[in-house]
Each structure stands twice: as structure tokens, then as C-alpha cells.
């Protein structure tokens, strides 16, 4: 299907195509309620609660007042719905702002200021410099005489460099005034989301040149959300509008992310649900049997002889309702609440504020903090994420002379400055190459200063450095380059640009010196792409040394070279080049071949060294997180060498003897396959050695590997703790994340640019760095931080605490519901299996919503270990990664505890309140207060650190329980009138309470203490060390300390379990420091070995589960 866009035809297109109204809204006022409810009821838990609530409306079977379920249910729905409504309102608001922006559009041949939403397909839209493009346009005119304009596309693809766009050939030279009246037709495909492709045709109608159709490509378009730069004005025909633009088509509401923990909670909920069904069936059958055998004899119950047809269902359904509290309705509310608090803690954290820019960290997605604590893979972008993305020219070597070695900054090296001042020919040549061998566009700002718009940061750094060395690239006027050097103006005519490709690893320009008419080839590129092509006889030893020296310092090196060309040589070559440029088959290869003919016999001028400084704390952060068992992958669009250099300098990989880099390359499937298998083999062999093995793969090989050898590559990915993927596209980044996710790993993607957005959205957790490449990544991300180093705190502190807290909170929520539910079940055995509720509706509702929810909410302040301890022993993150605190076996513990506590409460209550005291209301209050007492002590026992708030909530809640019940007991109309006063006056009530607490908590405490002291987990060990005397807090001092303390530490550093699959063995030994320590400590080897075996096998089990 195609669409035909008639230029300037105001009538025809209106009905066919939508206007330019952008709408990101999910709802309208009318469909909000039904749509939102429909969405909410898509979730299993909500369906379950709705079913229960509906069943409760049937008074024959409901054990309690329906309000006890409807109230919380409506509350929960109201909360989620209003949150959705608020978000949607904000979206509506930002749409409205975009829609009502005023733009110039031609209407009836006259330019008018209209709102952006009124643009129709076929309209001609005029843009001025720095305007945002309101819809997808086909260029028809610009202020530039050559029909060029520059756009910034960062919002679209994340690339910050300026791109040139050109008007179609037929529109060339149309008069400014005539542009208003232009008529024609554009034949273009239906809207799609491919931002790199636009295959269309344009034909202008008379009186304009009415010749053949003119083909259009993406080069002739400017797309929505781009910005017009360095061009006074431009105009274009709207082809796609509104939500049908390329941007609008590619925009999708990202899938809501579900944390591993949520998935686990869902799983456990499912298990509880199954358990509940089993209980209901068993009790239902028992109830019906009892009814037929016993209850019919009990004349006082007066069972009718013939019941209705549904009689058999009544008792099971009653039990279903009675047991429905097994799945606590409060858990969703509690979790939402604490999750938003976790997010707030991240926002508030003053240690994660980037004081340079004043940007605080921010959690956009408030629902996934726990996942931070379970991260297993971190996929990181390089430039701007690990580095500051601020390239600085640091050193250079010109004709064998090193500049900048002493001061570390060549621009301040007086030797170099002097050489420039005296116009030493070597140096001038060198600086000239720096200044003009590039694709930089100089822009004069209004103040007269010159700004450079560069595609690559390296070129930017070189041009700026040249300017500081008084070689100012002042102007580019069509093909004339203007250089100011020491006061004089030199002009060059730019003849050809031999563009950079990753294969050639160099770029060159051919210029003609306008002063003397000489043709010169200027080249810059990687050392291996320049030095071998030096003319015979040139000594390149010093340059090789320089390159090595600089590379070791982590600097990015470029070799600069030049060659004078004879005119006829150039002319001859130029023809070949033109021919190659216009070939249709293997064009790139042909061009490379032609370029090769010119790029030879260089006179190598020197070597530049550019520094892309690492951000503060990057190596430390990476080291700490790797110790925490997190695997790092670097996904960068950058060159292989640079990536490896940066990886080396930030502890990503270790240099040679310790580390090993395995290269996966190849151009064809076979090559890639062979290389892949070789790497995999090496990986398997070396996996037993304590060697830091990483693989390096480039985008091309990756493409093949992902397409044809996905299985092998996946295995490799699982084996490897470290990988460097260079020259990868944004979609490949996303694919890699997808790959790891499909292996059931928790992935975190961190990046700063628009090209990382897809990866960030794809990953379980996306972290954006609000850096120099704008806020695009930060906006798309779940978390935005100012600097890479905050990642450490985000994961180890916030992620870990969130995980621990949610683990406790969710299991506790089930526990407390189960306790009350078990009591109800036990009670049904002494109430003729008839489904009587022991507790009244008010108590049941208050128990779930209030008594047991408030104390546990303050567990968001609980810290099992201090932040400092966690930072020093990042290994304990393993407990979170492996899901040790929330898994079926811990849950079984809580399940058992709830069963035990229910038995304790029930047995003690019915025996202590037997016979004459067995009044229903009293007995139920005794059982309820027994539960409340136990809850207080359970929460207290599970709390690791008590702040004033915890005390208030735990003990205050206990007091509040009595106050509330006294109040209810004072209301004559209530069922429990005077009950609580009565009970509180009885000594036996208090005796019973203490008995319940002692009997319920005694075994729990004993078990906990026993585990804590004699089978301590690493967390316990650290807790003890942290609280008993603190020497562990200063790990640096630990070595000279006596042995006893070391004993506590060393197993910890050893047993960092990294095993993920049976074949996998830790590739990375622990830091040399810790392993040395353990060897010296004299700790019995078998002790910690058995420990590590235990933990590793455990982790495997976890994964299998």
C-alpha cells in the first residue's frame, strides 16, 4: 500500500490521513473506567479477590460481612486507578503542549502561524533554526544555496552529531516565493517505524519542471522530533503526521516490568492458592459427610431433609470464603506502599547526588527496586557511561619528539608552543592535519567564538587542540576551508573525503592548497592502518613506541600522515573514485580498494594521544560489583581497540598474564563459527584456571553469531563473566540483553545516550546516566543517576535493602494471614465442619488491614547490615542474587511457623477458655489477641535494627489493638460490647497471653539463635562482627590483627559462590588481597570448602527452581 501526498492540496488529504494531533494517552474520559477496570482484572490476584467478594454477597455462605472484602478491594482499585489516571493526565498535558505549539504552515499560498495539531498531510511546513520538527517532512527548500540543511536527530536515534539533509534534485533552485505555491505529488509507503529508510518518489506539477519522477531517500527527509540546526530556514511537505510519524510508530508503551521477586511472590501465591483449594475440598467433603451423618441428628440445627440442588456446594464454598484470607489482600497495598518508599529513598539519597551538576538520582519506575538487589549481569555502555565523554588532547609525538610527557598536557608544553610560534614545518603540517582532516563543521556563534560540530568526539578534541595551537579552523564555505594560522588566513579547497570505515580504520581528505595549488592527501587513523603504509625509508620505530606508550596510559591514539599528490595522479584517481562511488554492487569494498591506491607512501607526521577520562570511581565501582558476583558486559558502538583500552583501565579485564582476551571475528559464517567454537573451547579449558577470560566480539560477527549460532553464543555468554562487544548497534545491544534475559538472568543495562534507550528498555532494570548526551536515556530508564559510581550504592545499598525488606514483608504477609486462617480451619473441626468463622468481621478486617500491616510497614527501615559493611563485603549480595531470602524453602519456614503459631494459639485458647468461659466472643478475642501478641514478637524478632519508628510501630500497635478494641467494646450496638473490658479484668486472660507468647516464641527464638550462633550465614557472621566490636569495619587493618578476627572474615571472602551451572567454575579468583589473607589465616580448609560447596550447590538448586 502506498500513500499519495498532494503537495499544497488542502482538501483531499484531510479525510484520508489523520491530522498532526499527537496522542500518547491510554484512556479517554469515557473509556477510562471500563478500560482501567478491565486491565486491573487482567491480573490473577484481582480476579481472585473479585470472585471472593462476589461470593460473599451470597449470605448463605458468607462467614463474615461482605464489607470486609469489598472495602479493601475498592480501596485498592481506587488507588491504582487514580495513579493511572494521574499518569494519563500528565501524558495528556504534555501532548497538549506539543499539539498547541505554533508552527508556520502554508495555507492558500500564504504562510500562517497555526497550531502543530492542525498540520495536515501535504501541507508545507516552514522551520527556522533550532525549531523542533513537528511531523515527518520531505525537504523542498532550505536557506542553503546548495540545498543542504543540518538536523540533530538525538531524540530519534540518540546520535548527537549533526546530520546533513539535502533537498531533492528537482526542487533545487526553486525560488523562495515559489515554494509557497509549489504543487506536486509524493508517492510514499504507508507509515512504518524504520527511521533509516524512506523509499519514495516525487513529481512536481507544472509550471515546475515536469520531468520524470525524482527518487527520494531518507536523506531528503527531516523527521519528527529532530531539531533544525545551523540552517536559517528550511521547508518541507508533511508526509506523515500525528501518531503516524516514524517516531510515533516506533513509540510504544513499554511493557511493565515485573521483578523476579514479584514473579516469586506470584508463584508462592499460586502455591497457596492450590493449597487453599485442597483444604477447601477436603473440608468441604468432610463438612458434607459430617452434615449427613451427624448434623441431621442434631435437631437444634434443623437441617431440612431436602435441600436445594446446590446444597452440596454450600459448605465447600463457605470454606473457600473462610480460607480466602490465606491470600492476603493487604499484600498488594503494602508492597506498593513500600516500593514507592524504596524509590523515595533513592530520590532522597544525598550520597547519590552528583554535586558537579546538582542532579539527584531518581527512580522513575517505583516498582522494581528489589530487582536491583538481584542483578546478575550489567550491560554497560562505554562512552559517557564509564568515561566522561569529554575527549581531551593530551600528548603528541611529532617527528620523533614527544610533547606533553612532562606536564601531561601537550597544549601547555612550551616546547610545542615554541615550535608553533616559529612555524617549524613538521609541527605546522601536523597541526594542519589536526585541523582539517575531519568532517567537523565550524559554526560562528553570535559572539564571534567558533563552535565545532563534530561527528566524533575525537575530531572535536583534535580541532579544538589545533585551535589552541593557533591553527584555527575558522570557516567552511562550501568546499573552501578557511584556516587562520598565526594571524594569516590559509585557504584549502576540499576535494574528496575518504570516509572512515571500521575496516579501513582511517579517514583521509584530499585538499588543494589555494595558495600554491598543491594537492595534498591528509590522513589520520589507527596505527596499524597508517604506519605500514609509510613511504619506504621512513623510520616508524619512534611512532610505534609512542603508540605503545600512550596506549599503556589508556590514551586513544591516532597517527597522522600526509602525502603530496601530483595533479594528474589525483585526477586519475578521482575518476576511479567517482566510478566506485556510484557502483551498486559491493560499493563499500570497491571504495576501500580505490582509497587504498591513494593512501600509501605516507609521510607519517606523528601520533596524537587523546584522553577520554574515566569517570571518578569507575574502576572501584566495577571491582566492587564484580566482587558482588555481578558480571559485566561492555556494549559499545566504539572501536575495538578503544573499547579494550578503556576496559583495561577500568578493571573490566585484567592485562595479559592474568587476563586473557579471546577474539571472535570473521566476515563469513564459517569464520565466525570457527572462531566462536575456538573461543568456547578455550573458555571451557580455562574455566578451571583462576584466569580472567573475556571475549571480544564486534558487531558484524555478533550479527552472524546471533543469527546462525545462537545456541553456541548463548553457551559462551553463560560461561563468560566478561565480554566486550564493540561496534554494536542499538538493536544489537537490545538483542544481547534479550539473550541474557532468556537465560533467566537478571540484567541491568546502563547507558547515557539515545542509542542505549532500547537496551535500557529491554533490560530488567534500565539505568540512565544523565550525562552530556542529554537526558534521553535517563528519561527512558527506570533509574537515572548522575554518575556511574552511584551504581554501586544503587545496587548494594538500595537494591539489597529493598530485596531484604520485601522478602520479609511479603512472607510475613502470608504468614500472618495463614496464622489466622489455620485457626479458622482448626476451629471448623470443633464446630461441626460447618464453616463458622471464629472471628467476627470487624476483627478479621482490622487484623489484615491494620493490626498486622502497620508494624510490618516500618520494616522498610530495617537494615540487616550497615551500609559500610555491605560496601566492604559486596559478596553478600549473593544472598539476594540467588534469592536466598525469598524462595520456596524460606517460605516453607514461614508456612511452618504459621502452622505452629496457629496450633499454639488455638490449643492454648480452647483449653484455657474451656467450659464456662467458652463464650464465643470472648474466646475469639482471646485467640485474636494471642495472634496479635505473637505478631508483635515475631516482627520484633525479625527486625535487625530498631529505630524509634520501629519501636513505635511494633509496641504502639499492640497498645493500639487494645485501645481500638476497648473503643469497640464500649459501643452497646457492637457484637463485642464489654468483651474486651471483661477480658482485661481477668488474670487468666493475661496469663494466657504470656503463655501464648512464651510457647509460640520460645522454639522460634531457640531455632534462630541456634542457627545464628552455630550455623551462621555470612550475613549473620557479618552482623556479629559488625556489632560485637567493629574491627571488621576497617578491613584494611585486618591483616595485622590477631587470627580470631580473620577467621570470621576469611571464609567470607573465599566462599563467594559464583557457580551458575554445573560446568561453570569461578573464572575470577577473588581479589589477590583476600585470597592471600585466607591462605595465611590458617583456617581449616575443609571448613570453608564444605561451606562453599554447600552454597554453590544451593545456588544451583535455586537456579533450577
Amino acid at each position: 500500500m502506498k500513500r499519495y501526498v498532494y503537495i499544497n492540496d488542502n482538501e483531499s488529504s484531510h479525510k484520508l490521513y489523520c491530522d498532526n494531533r499527537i496522542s500518547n494517552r491510554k484512556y479517554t474520559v469515557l473509556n477510562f473506567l471500563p478500560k482501567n477496570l478491565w486491565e486491573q482484572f487482567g491480573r490473577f490476584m484481582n480476579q481472585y479477590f473479585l470472585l471472593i467478594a462476589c461470593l460473599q454477597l451470597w449470605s448463605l455462605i458468607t462467614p463474615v460481612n461482605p464489607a470486609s472484602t469489598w472495602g479493601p478491594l475498592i480501596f485498592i482499585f481506587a488507588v491504582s486507578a487514580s495513579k493511572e489516571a494521574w499518569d494519563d493526565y500528565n501524558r495528556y498535558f504534555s501532548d497538549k503542549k506539543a499539539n498547541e505549539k505554533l508552527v508556520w504552515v502554508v495555507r492558500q499560498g500564504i504562510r500562517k502561524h497555526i497550531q502543530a495539531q492542525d498540520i495536515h498531510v501535504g501541507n508545507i511546513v516552514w522551520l527556522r533554526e533550532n525549531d523542533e520538527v513537528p511531523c515527518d517532512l520531505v525537504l523542498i527548500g532550505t536557506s542553503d544555496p546548495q540545498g543542504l540543511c543540518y538536523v540533530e536527530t538525538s531524540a530519534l536515534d540518540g546520535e548527537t552529531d549533526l546530520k546533513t539533509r539535502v533537498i531533492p534534485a528537482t526542487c533545487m533552485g526553486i525560488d523562495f516565493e515559489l515554494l509557497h505555491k509549489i504543487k506536486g505529488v509524493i508517492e510514499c509507503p504507508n507509515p512504518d517505524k524504520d527511521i533509516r529508510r524512506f523509499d519514495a518518489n516525487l513529481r512536481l506539477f507544472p509550471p515546475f519542471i515536469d520531468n520524470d519522477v525524482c527518487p527520494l531517500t531518507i536523506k531528503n527527509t527531516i523527521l519528527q522530533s529532530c531539531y533544525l540546526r545551523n540552517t536559517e530556514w528550511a521547508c518541507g511537505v508533511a508526509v506523515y503526521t500525528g501518531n503516524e510519524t516514524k517516531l510515533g510508530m516506533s513509540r510504544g508503551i513499554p511493557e511493565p516490568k515485573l521483578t523476579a521477586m514479584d514473579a516469586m511472590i506470584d508463584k508462592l501465591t499460586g502455591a497457596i492458592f492450590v493449597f487453599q483449594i485442597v483444604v477447601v475440598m477436603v473440608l468441604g467433603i468432610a463438612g458434607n459427610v459430617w452434615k449427613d451423618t451427624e448434623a441431621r441428628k442434631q435437631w437444634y440445627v434443623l437441617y431440612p431433609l431436602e435441600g436445594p440442588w446446590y446444597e452440596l456446594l454450600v459448605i465447600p464454598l463457605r470454606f473457600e470464603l473462610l480460607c480466602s484470607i490465606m491470600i492476603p489482600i493487604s499484600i498488594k497495598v503494602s508492597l506498593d506502599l513500600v516500593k514507592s518508599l524504596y524509590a523515595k529513598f533513592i530520590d532522597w539519597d544525598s550520597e547519590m547526588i552528583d554535586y558537579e551538576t546538582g542532579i539527584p538520582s531518581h527512580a522513575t519506575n517505583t516498582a522494581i527496586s528489589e530487582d536491583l538487589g538481584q542483578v546478575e549481569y550489567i550491560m554497560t555502555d562505554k562512552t559517557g557511561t564509564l568515561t566522561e565523554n569529554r575527549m581531551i588532547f593530551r600528548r603528541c609525538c611529532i617527528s620523533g619528539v614527544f610533547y606533553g610527557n612532562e606536564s601531561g598536557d601537550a597544549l601547555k608544553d612550551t616546547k610545542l608552543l615554541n615550535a608553533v610560534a616559529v612555524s617549524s614545518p613538521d609541527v605546522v603540517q601536523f597541526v594542519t592535519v589536526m585541523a582539517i582532516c575531519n568532517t567537523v563543521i565550524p559554526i560562528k556563534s553570535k559572539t564571534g567564538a567558533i563552535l565545532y560540530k563534530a561527528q566524533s568526539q575525537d575530531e572535536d578534541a583534535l580541532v579544538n587542540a589545533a585551535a589552541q595551537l593557533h591553527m584555527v579552523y575558522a570557516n567552511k564555505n562550501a568546499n573552501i576551508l578557511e584556516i587562520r594560522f598565526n594571524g594569516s588566513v590559509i585557504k584549502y579547497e576540499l576535494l574528496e573525503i575518504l570516509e572512515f570505515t571500521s575496516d579501513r580504520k582511517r579517514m583521509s581528505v584530499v585538499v588543494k592548497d589555494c595558495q600554491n595549488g598543491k594537492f595534498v592527501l591528509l590522513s589520520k587513523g589507527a596505527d596499524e592502518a597508517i604506519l605500514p603504509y609509510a613511504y619506504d625509508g621512513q623510520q616508524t620505530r619512534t611512532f610505534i613506541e609512542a603508540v605503545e606508550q600512550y596506549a599503556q596510559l589508556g590514551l586513544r591514539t591516532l597517527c597522522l600522515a600526509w602525502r603530496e599528490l601530483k595533479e594528474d595522479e589525483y585526477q586519475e584517481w578521482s575518476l576511479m573514485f567517482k566510478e566506485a562511488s556510484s557502483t551498486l554492487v559491493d560499493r563499500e569494498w570497491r571504495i576501500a580498494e580505490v582509497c587504498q591506491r591513494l593512501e600509501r607512501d605516507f609521510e607519517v607526521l606523528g601520533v596524537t594521544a587523546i584522553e577520554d577520562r574515566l569517570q571518578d570511581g569507575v574502576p572501584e565501582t566495577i571491582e566492587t560489583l564484580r566482587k558482588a558476583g555481578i558480571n559485566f558486559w561492555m556494549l559499545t558502538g566504539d572501536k575495538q581497540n578503544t573499547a579494550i583500552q578503556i576496559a583495561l583501565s577500568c578493571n573490566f579485564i585484567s592485562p595479559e598474564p592474568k587476563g586473557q582476551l579471546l577474539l571472535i571475528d570473521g566476515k563469513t559464517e564459517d569464520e565466525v563459527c570457527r572462531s566462536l567454537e575456538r573461543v568456547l573451547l578455550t573458555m571451557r579449558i580455562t574455566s578451571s584456571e583462576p584466569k580472567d577470560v573475556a571475549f571480544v566480539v564486534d558487531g558484524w560477527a555478533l550479527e552472524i553469531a546471533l543469527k546462525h549460532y545462537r545456541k553456541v553464543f548463548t553457551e559462551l555468554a553463560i560461561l563468560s563473566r566478561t565480554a566486550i562487544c564493540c561496534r554494536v548497534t542499538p538493536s544489537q545491544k537490545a538483542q544481547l540483553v534479550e539473550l541474557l534475559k532468556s537465560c533467566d538472568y537478571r540484567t541491568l543495562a546502563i547507558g547515557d545516550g539515545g542509542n542505549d534507550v532500547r537496551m535500557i528498555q529491554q533490560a530488567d532494570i534500565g539505568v540512565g546516566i544523565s550525562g552530556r548526551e542529554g537526558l534521553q536515556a535517563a528519561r527512558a530508564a527506570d533509574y537515572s543517576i548522575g554518575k556511574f559510581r552511584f551504581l554501586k550504592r544503587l545496587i548494594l545499598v538500595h537494591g539489597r535493602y529493598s530485596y531484604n525488606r520485601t522478602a520479609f514483608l511479603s512472607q510475613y504477609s502470608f504468614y500472618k494471614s495463614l496464622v489466622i486462617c489455620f485457626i479458622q480451619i482448626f476451629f471448623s473441626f470443633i464446630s461441626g465442619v460447618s464453616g463458622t468463622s471464629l472471628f467476627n468481621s470487624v476483627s478479621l478486617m482490622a487484623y489484615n488491614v491494620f493490626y498486622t500491616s502497620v508494624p510490618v510497614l516500618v520494616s522498610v527501615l530495617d537494615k540487616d547490615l550497615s551500609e559500610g559493611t555491605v560496601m566492604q563485603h559486596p559478596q553478600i549480595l549473593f544472598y539476594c542474587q540467588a534469592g536466598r531470602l525469598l524462595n520456596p524453602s524460606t517460605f516453607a519456614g514461614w508456612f511452618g511457623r504459621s502452622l505452629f503459631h496457629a496450633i499454639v494459639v488455638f490449643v492454648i485458647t480452647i483449653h484455657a477458655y474451656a467450659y464456662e468461659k467458652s463464650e464465643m466472643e470472648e474466646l475469639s478475642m482471646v485467640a485474636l489477641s494471642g495472634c496479635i501478641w505473637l505478631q508483635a514478637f515475631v516482627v520484633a524478632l525479625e527486625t535487625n535494627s530498631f529505630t524509634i519508628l520501629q519501636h513505635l510501630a511494633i509496641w504502639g500497635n499492640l497498645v493500639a489493638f487494645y485501645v481500638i478494641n476497648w473503643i469497640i467494646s464500649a459501643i452497646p450496638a457492637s457484637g463485642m460490647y464489654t468483651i474486651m473490658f471483661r477480658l482485661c479484668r481477668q488474670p487468666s486472660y493475661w496469663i494466657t497471653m504470656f503463655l501464648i507468647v512464651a510457647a509460640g516464641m520460645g522454639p522460634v527464638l531457640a531455632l534462630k539463635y541456634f542457627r545464628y550462633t552455630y550455623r551462621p550465614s555470612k550475613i549473620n557472621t557479618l552482623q556479629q562482627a559488625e556489632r560485637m566490636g567493629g574491627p571488621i569495619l576497617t578491613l584494611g587493618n585486618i591483616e595485622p590483627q590477631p587470627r580470631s578476627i580473620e577467621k570470621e572474615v576469611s571464609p567470607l571472602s573465599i566462599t563467594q559462590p559464583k557457580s551458575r551451572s554445573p560446568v561453570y567454575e569461578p573464572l575470577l579468583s577473588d581479589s589477590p588481597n583476600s585470597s592471600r589473607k585466607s591462605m595465611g589465616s590458617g583456617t581449616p580448609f575443609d571448613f570453608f570448602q564444605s561451606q562453599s560447596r554447600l552454597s554453590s550447590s544451593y545456588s544451583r538448586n535455586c537456579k533450577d527452581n
Partner: protein
Amino acid sequence: MSETNSDRQRRGDRESAFYLFTQQRLPACKPVLTPPWVITIYFLVGFIFVPVGLFTLRASHSVVEIEERYDIECVPSQFRNDKVSYIQDDSVPKNCSLLFKVDKYMKAPIYIYYQLENYYQNHRRYVRSRSDQQLLHGRNFHGTSYCQPLESSNNRPIVPCGLIAWSLFNDTFTFIRGKALLKVNRTNIAWKSDRDHKFGKNVYPFNFQNGTWIGGGKLNPRIPLSNQEDLIVWMRISALPSFRKLYGRIEEDLDVGDYVVVQLMNDYNTYSFGGKKKLVLSTSNWLGGKNDFLGLAYVFVGSSSLTVAIVFMLLHLRSQR
């Protein structure tokens, strides 16, 4: 300048509790389960619980309780094999007598309870079959659907409606010591709060036990519900299938060796479902009636916790060495 200002502000904020909260840095105490602490706790619990248990046990033992089952004895021998027909046959006289021998001195007030076993007052059909509003407001209150099937008979509402009232316990007891009738106080046996606030002073039984099914006891239609104390006691349903309900109080002491003869009307049908009926005389103290459970449980918990403490202490000592 602004930098220093914000610095100062930051430092100033540092003291505020809210700032500490936002930074999750509220001062916290972190208790550790150290061996001394835990062992002390267990010893403490042990040393408190054992004496309290013994004390409670003594209190329980100081309560004198006489319990006699009468539902079997009172069935004439010819009906032993078909007790149900006995109880349902109105022509058979239901009177019966029971002999209590007092083994220990019983100080007044002595509480008289009737005890029912295997009687499910907590059955779901039963529990809900009442109307609190009707009990308080009488016949004018119409929302009595819970009382089904005993909501109305002959198209007239039943007051009090529902299964609970309908199945009112109706055995009666008179107590004779030696030759004299023992004075039994049958007032104030129900909770005062119930009499005052739950059962209407102007609500009189109406159309009660007039239907096709006859349940338990009848009510005097001239006495308001708030004074029908047997009904009020009965309507405080029990949560357990074995329960005692107060019948009255003997306000004289009973001496050792006294014989109390109980003349009773065995009207209430427990035979059809195998329930037991017992009559209990019991004194009372701060603990309530006789109940060894609390004392025994305390002693048990206390001694277990002492054991645990000793085990932990030994473990601790061994691991220290």
C-alpha cells in the same frame, strides 16, 4: 556563596529527624543474639514460669468442683435402648434425682452449671440464626431473615426468633440438703450488659414454640426478654462443643460430708445426637473455675525453657573451649 549557603543548610538539615529518615540513617539499636543474652532470657522465662505455673495450679486445685452426668441415669431402664422415644414421649414422667456428695468444704457462692457435651452451639446454621435487633427492639423489627426457618409461624413473627432461642435448654433443677431446700439464686446469672443493652425491656416473647416443630424450653410471655435470664445465658453461644452454662448460685456453704439431692426435670433432648448432660457445682476464685491446663502449661513451658537454657549454656561453653 550559594555553595556555602547550601552547605550550611545541608549541615543544618543533618540534625533533623526527617533528614535522617530520608537518608535511612535514623539512630537504631541493633540487638544481637549473643549467647549470654539468649541464655539469660530462657533462664528468666523458666524461673518466672515455673513458680507462676505452680501458683496457678494451686489456685486451680483450691477450686472445689463436683460434676455428675445425669442423662443416662435418668432414663428409666425400660427405655435404655431407645432413649429418643423416651425423651419424645410426653406421657413418660421426666423427673429424676441425683445425689451429690461433698468431699471438700465449698464456700459460697457455689455456682451451678449445666454442662452439655457434643452440642454444637457453634454450628454455622445455629450461630447465625438469631436477630440481635429483634431481641432488643421486639416484634417491630422485621429484618429477621437470618432466623430462617424459625422466623415466623402461622404468618406471625416469632419473638425471639431463630434456632438458638428455639432450642433453649429446659432441664430444671432443685437442690435439697438434708431435708431443707437449698436456696438457689437464679438472678444475675446473665451478663448485666446483656440484660441492659442487648435484650429489650419491653420485648415480650410472642408466638414462641407455637409452630410445627417444638424445640426446647418455652418462655413466659409475660416476662420481658431482659428478665429471661436463662434465655440470655443460653443465647451467649459457646465456641466449643462442650460447654457449661450458669444455672444459678447456691449462697450457702457446703460442708464436707454433706449430701445434696438434686431433683431434676430431664426434658432436654440430647439423646438423638448422643450428647451428654452434666450438672456441675463449683466454687470460684481469681482464676475462675477449676482449670489445671494453665498451671500445667506454665510448668511445662517453664521447665522446657530451663532445659533449653542449660543446653545452650553447655553448647556455648563447649564452643568457647
